[in-house]
């Protein structure tokens, strides 16, 4: 009788012997968030090295910016972080306003807070749903997208677009909020909160989810700072830094008089910790679970901020913006400004030689820096952890592109 395959020790040994292997993840793998390609060097299930390749979407945004006026470039900022286009509009508009030394009326300021915080909720909902999808659960993704669609309905009523708005622009916004819109927005916020609780039940406290994310991809605060990580990534590592509070005056004055606390772990607990699921014992500060949790708490915080902004907006005086011509001449000089976008700090740099077209346009994006830390986080993890780690950074490839 012939020796069966399994009984022959040499064959078995040959079959299970592992060797170093290069595995390409993406650009098409659904869990790699767009056109990201990761080259993994693996030994069996263990990943020894990860190299991200990011140039697949090179759209020459900066070069185009050097041939258009700042207001004409607003639609290109939409397409950077397409999940939070309003925040991108705001970042660029504020930078140009800084260069032009433009002061805005109060009403425009509160309008911008309403719009950008709503977009932050929409963006975090996608981040949350897609993260669940990365880890193999589908329902939270549907629930998150259903809520996001409601925000997009609100935005559609404001500016007619659902993804690329070009609504906030240099000098304020393109037009005022429609009548009755604030009531609809308030209704949306009221029904959103139970859904967030549901998502907490489905993900944050889910035993499988905790096992997949707790103590995985731990990012120390020192490393987060050294790699220039920002947003929920750095706050998930316990660094108390949020540009809405600490940033440049031109940006923080938007939030003057608003009551909010930076979502970061202080003294072992988060603000509002008593209302929301406790941190599981397996979780370590700076791991994937904490990054996710910071995003979830920021949704609640943004709901609160939108409510405050709506109150102020409805009583504010002045116009929704100051008129700026499409081809307004820029003063000579340069300006750099960073804003707190949902994924972290979005910086724009503009150099002008005195004409209406900028000499140099530069975008510094949060996902770019957040992704550059991947190779440190993925060293020695399992292949199944790679989507968990990359997903927890919540990168958008359009933002990494220039």
């Amino acid at each position, binding site marked *: 009788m012939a020796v069966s395959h399994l009984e022959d020790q040499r064959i078995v040994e040959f079959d299970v012997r592992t060797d170093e292997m290069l595995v390409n993840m993406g650009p098409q793998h659904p869990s790699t968030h767009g056109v990201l390609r990761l080259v993994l060097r693996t030994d069996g299930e263990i990943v020894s090295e990860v190299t991200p390749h990011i140039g697949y979407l090179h759209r020459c945004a900066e070069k185009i910016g050097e041939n258009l006026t700042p207001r004409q470039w607003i639609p290109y900022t939409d397409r950077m972080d397409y999940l939070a286009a309003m925040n991108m509009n705001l970042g660029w508009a504020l930078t140009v306003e800084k260069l032009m030394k433009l002061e805005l009326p109060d009403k425009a300021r509160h309008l911008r807070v309403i719009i950008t915080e709503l977009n932050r909720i929409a963006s975090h909902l996608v981040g949350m749903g897609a993260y669940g999808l990365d880890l193999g659960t589908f329902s939270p993704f549907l629930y998150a997208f259903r809520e996001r669609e409601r925000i997009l309905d609100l935005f559609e009523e404001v500016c007619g677009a659902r993804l690329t708005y070009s609504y906030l622009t240099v000098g304020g916004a393109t037009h005022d909020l429609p009548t009755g819109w604030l009531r609809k927005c308030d209704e949306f916020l009221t029904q959103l909160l139970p859904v967030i609780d549901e998502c907490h039940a489905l993900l944050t406290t889910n035993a499988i989810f905790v096992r997949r994310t707790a103590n995985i991809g731990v990012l120390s605060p020192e490393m987060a700072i050294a790699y220039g990580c920002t947003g929920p990534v750095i706050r998930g590592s316990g660094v108390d830094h949020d540009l809405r509070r600490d940033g*440049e005056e031109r940006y923080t004055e938007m939030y003057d008089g608003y009551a909010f606390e930076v979502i970061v772990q202080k003294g072992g607990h988060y603000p509002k910790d008593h209302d929301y699921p406790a941190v599981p014992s397996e979780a370590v500060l700076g791991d994937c679970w904490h990054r996710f949790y910071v995003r979830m708490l920021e949704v609640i915080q943004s709901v609160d901020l939108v409510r405050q902004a709506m109150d102020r907006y409805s009583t504010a005086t002045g116009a929704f913006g100051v008129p700026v011509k499409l081809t307004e001449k820029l003063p000579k000089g340069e300006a750099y400004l960073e804003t707190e976008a949902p994924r972290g700090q979005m*910086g724009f740099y503009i150099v002008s030689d005195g004409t209406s077209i900028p000499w140099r346009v530069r975008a510094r994006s949060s996902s770019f820096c957040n992704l550059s830390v991947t190779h440190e986080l993925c060293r020695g993890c399992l292949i199944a952890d790679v989507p968990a780690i990359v997903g927890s950074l919540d990168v958008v490839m359009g933002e990494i592109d*220039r």
Partner: protein
Amino acid sequence: MSGQAFLDRLKQQFGDEITGANLEAIDPWIEVSPSGLVEVCLYLRDQADLKFEMLNCISAVDYFEPDPKKAAKATFAPHLEVVYHLWSFKGKVSLVLKVMLPRWQDDVPGQIPEVPSVSQIWPTADWHEREVYDLSGVRFVGHPGLRRILCPEDWVGHPLRKDYDMPLEYHGIRGR
């Protein structure tokens, strides 16, 4: 610390390596010579009262006017600037460092200028420097792996240079 006092302190510390400043600009900046860049950056990061621990952005600006008619009226001499935007968590202030470079090393067209890499000081500079190298053509000496990051590895030229010409074809793909 006011801008002037800060500048005086850096000048006292590094002497001629601090080659200029503009404190009246919207974002006041300090100019550093390429040879002193690494020392100045280490000092800014490690001094207990400064602690510029975060490197926000590295950008390169190409000051060159390819159109001869406009070039006659240009207010600048052709050169290349590398701009570093730093941030201090401690003081909650930002700082702008600038390094001025010739457009071409030794005035030989095609030979890109060199500046020391700060990726040993801030690891985030790794990708930022690769991007500046790729798009603006500055060689960072001491960088661990200076490769193109957005363009393909065999791409010719640096697209954000003002005199860059789009190639007519690339691997059989028609450009322009």
